């Protein structure tokens, strides 16, 4: 499993619940270290163990934790670079949605060894979309929940008002329903093309 995924889980727990909570998780799992390295590769089982332990520690469902991680990744200052990279997808939220098909390919441009599940957007009307997440039986099962959290935060970022629903996992695919209620609901956050993320 790519270290970036484990690192995301770690930073989410540390930044949201504090370092002590995170160190507690690593101790109980007897990992032998307290920090993941984003550019190293880890045994896929570790990610599953960490997620289960985090969910148990926070007394939340695993899907809830995954959704929170998705939201955290876009909205927390320590992952500003990721928010910016996602905003390159389009000028409006709809353009952004339409760019999601390219997301795994875009990710590979940055990190050639990082494989995201294939994403496919279907436009049913101009305010109703479904996003199919092909997780298969890969290590990234339930990645759709992360996508839900991520979309929710990106909608905020663009100032759009959306209703999102994860329709569950079926045969290695996950469906996320996206109801676009208002494109310009709020001002959203600025995206200055020339301002490099630090």
């Amino acid at each position: 499993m790519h270290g970036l995924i484990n690192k995301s889980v770690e930073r989410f727990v540390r930044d949201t619940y504090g370092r002590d909570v995170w160190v507690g998780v690593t101790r109980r799992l007897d990992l032998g270290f307290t920090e993941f390295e984003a550019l190293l590769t880890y045994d896929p089982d570790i990610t599953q163990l960490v997620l289960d332990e985090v969910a148990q520690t926070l007394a939340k469902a695993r899907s809830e934790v995954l959704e929170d991680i998705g939201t955290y990744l876009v909205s927390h200052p320590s992952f500003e670079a990721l928010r910016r990279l996602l905003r390159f997808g389009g000028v409006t939220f709809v353009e952004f949605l339409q760019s999601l098909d390219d997301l795994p390919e875009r990710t590979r441009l940055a990190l050639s060894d990082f494989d995201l599940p294939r994403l496919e957007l279907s436009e049913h009307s101009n305010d109703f979309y479904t996003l199919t997440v092909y997780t298969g039986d890969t290590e990234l099962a339930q990645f759709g929940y992360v996508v839900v959290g991520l979309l929710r935060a990106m909608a905020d970022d663009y100032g759009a008002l959306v209703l999102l629903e994860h329709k569950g996992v079926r045969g290695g695919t996950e469906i996320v329903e996206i109801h676009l209620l208002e494109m310009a609901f709020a001002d959203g956050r600025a995206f200055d093309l020339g301002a490099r993320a630090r």
Partner: protein
Amino acid sequence: MSGLPGENHLGPVLDTLCPMHAVLDATGQVIHLGPTLKKLFADRNLNGARFTDLFEIRRPRVGPTMDDLRRIAHGKLHLRLRDAPCTELKGVLVPLPETGDFGVLGGAIVNLSFGISVTDAVRDFSLTSADFAPTDLTVEMLYLIEAKSAVVAASRKLNLQLQGAKIAAEEQAFTDTLTGLKNRRAMDLVLRRLILSGQNFALMNLDLDYFKAVNDNFGHAAGDHVLQHVARVMVEEIRREDTIIRTGGDEFVLVLTQKVDRHAVAEIARRLIERLEQPISFGGHECRISASVGATLSCRYSDPDLSMLHEDADCALYAAKGRGRGCFVLYHAALRSGSGQAGELPERRVDD
């Protein structure tokens, strides 16, 4: 900028397809700028401005007339904005027909792009994704530049960590990299373990004599060669269970755990000194060294203490050096009282 007849055909089409184009009339005056290119001049009045007033054509070198410009048509142009921030641009010029009804008769279209200066330009002129044609890969390039920077930053952080870990590992390592012998850290570990287990052992300090002369006369490569030779000799002369440590430049410690009575230890010291005094050849030279050895036996102490053992072995070595070169002294209490002369054990000169 006044619209000339004919401009109307081209302007709106080109504004979408290549928003960084300029339309020139037959005299080289700029009569239209694409919307993105216009942003480079903010509120400046461009009426009557010639293309070469706004842009310096750096390569290929060319004169300012329209005839000059036509000569560099279709090739790659390197340009620079004449005003600050003097942005570098790439371009290509296509002349328009001088007759007929297409475009500005006798004029030209120049299409520009930022090339490699794009990140600065985007910041300098507050450009957005909408300023680039949908088919233009500039935004993808900006994405890649940011993604690359983020990955390189993470990679640099990892490298720093690994470098720190490497230094720490080297410091903690137990091996002297030049000779392959153990180092001081390993020595303390070995001695502590021996003391804890109550095993008898001899602690032998060995300093090379005349080693500085080898370094001075024949250079450090010769010195390194001699040290490696010394290490080999010692490994050959002691048993596998024993430990040899290089504690400093030409200082060694041997921890002997087999046959540690005074005679056996003296015999090992004698053999070591004898072999080390044999000339060592290096680069056509003969390097000659010797060794002074002092030792103490753990069985002398009812409760062996690490620092006490070191002190006594040092004391014996000091006494050996006091005898001249190539001597061995086994520690005994009289060495410390200063009246050592009388009570000393017999020392041996190897070349007796």
